[in-house]
């Protein structure tokens, strides 16, 4: 693969960014948010019972350094009650989507119900395939549909101010076409049987 020597020139250290770095990282909320959080914790599933997994070397270091402190801490602070039994459950920091939200186009888009009718059929087939893709692929698709949604919203807001702009209308149509192309690629991928007579 050729390496194309592109890339922006690295700008010198920017004084504005240096000032931003000096801003306090911590900002205290106006009032204590814990009561609201605690109330909601009671409504959600508790963390899974499987052992907390920590990189082995780090776990060893933490264990050696913290055994005595843990004993001290347990004497100082009474436990919150018996440790509840928990269910084994698969949870991930970021939920993997099992469905997608198609892009919504604003009132200034100029796209009609007829345009979306073509998309509906494609979506029906797409959803059948989407759920069976790898989790990371589903996540990538969902993220990019969100990016397209942001784009559609920005264009629609701009069209509200300049409804005659051919540039903006072209961009919106382009975004819609890219959305359709995404669905189409997934629908037809790896599907040799569809080409049988």
């Amino acid at each position, binding site marked *: 693969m050729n390496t194309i020597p592109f890339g*922006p020139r690295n*700008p010198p250290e*920017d004084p*504005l*960014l240096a*000032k*931003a*770095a*000096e*801003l*306090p*990282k*911590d*900002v*205290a*909320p*106006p009032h204590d*948010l*814990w009561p*609201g*959080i605690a109330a*909601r*914790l009671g409504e*959600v*599933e*508790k*963390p*899974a*019972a*499987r052992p*907390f*997994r*920590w*990189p082995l070397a*780090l776990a060893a270091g*933490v264990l050696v*350094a*913290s055994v005595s*402190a*843990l004993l*001290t*801490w347990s004497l100082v*602070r009474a*436990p*919150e009650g018996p*440790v*509840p039994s*928990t269910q084994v459950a698969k*949870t*991930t*920091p*970021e939920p993997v989507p099992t469905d997608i939200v198609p892009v919504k186009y604003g009132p200034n888009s100029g796209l009609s119900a007829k345009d979306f009718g073509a998309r509906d059929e494609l979506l029906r087939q797409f959803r059948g395939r989407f759920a069976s893709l790898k989790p990371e692929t589903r996540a990538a698709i969902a*993220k990019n549909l*969100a*990016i397209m*949604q*942001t784009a559609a*919203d*920005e264009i629609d*807001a701009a069209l509200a101010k300049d409804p005659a702009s051919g540039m903006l209308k072209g961009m919106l149509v382009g975004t819609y076409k890219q959305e359709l192309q995404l669905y189409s690629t997934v629908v037809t991928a790896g599907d040799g049987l569809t080409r049988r007579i």
Partner: protein
Amino acid sequence: MPAGRVDSSAELVMRACRGDVGAFEDLYRQHVGRVYGLCLRMTGQPESAEDLTQDTFVSAWRSLPGYEGRSSFSTWLHRIAVNAVLAKRRSPQGRNEVSMTDELGEQMEFEADAPMDEATPIDVERAIAGLPPGARDIVVLHGIYGYSHEEAAEMLGVAVGTCKAQLHRARHLMRARMGEERAT
């Protein structure tokens, strides 16, 4: 804190994983400032920032078993917070909020205010708050919280080049906001 207590996050996370709400409250108190600070600066709205901070910690509680220590707990919380902010922007309510601070409106505000003579921390905060969302996100993550371009891009779900471009744009806009000379 009790005498002799060492790195609390690791122990607290382990205990919270076992359902210890008290340990999780301690984690909250240790990290709420950074989470709220990030949510506040990314949204520019204190009320939204409070809701998103709560959402972040509730999500973190649910997702604790998935935390494997590859990044610091603070960074992991920030990832959850960023996702919460972006999800809210995508929601119908969030879209309405974004449209009220669209780029056009903010740019008009830049033109209306008089430039500042000195860049005080308040000036910098105000300049960041006045940025459009994409540029603001990268200034908050990279400029304030020190994440690399690659980390910020991954958290925001955009390409690294987009982050760099947004940062470049943010510098221009902030300089205009604060009355400094535009770079050529």
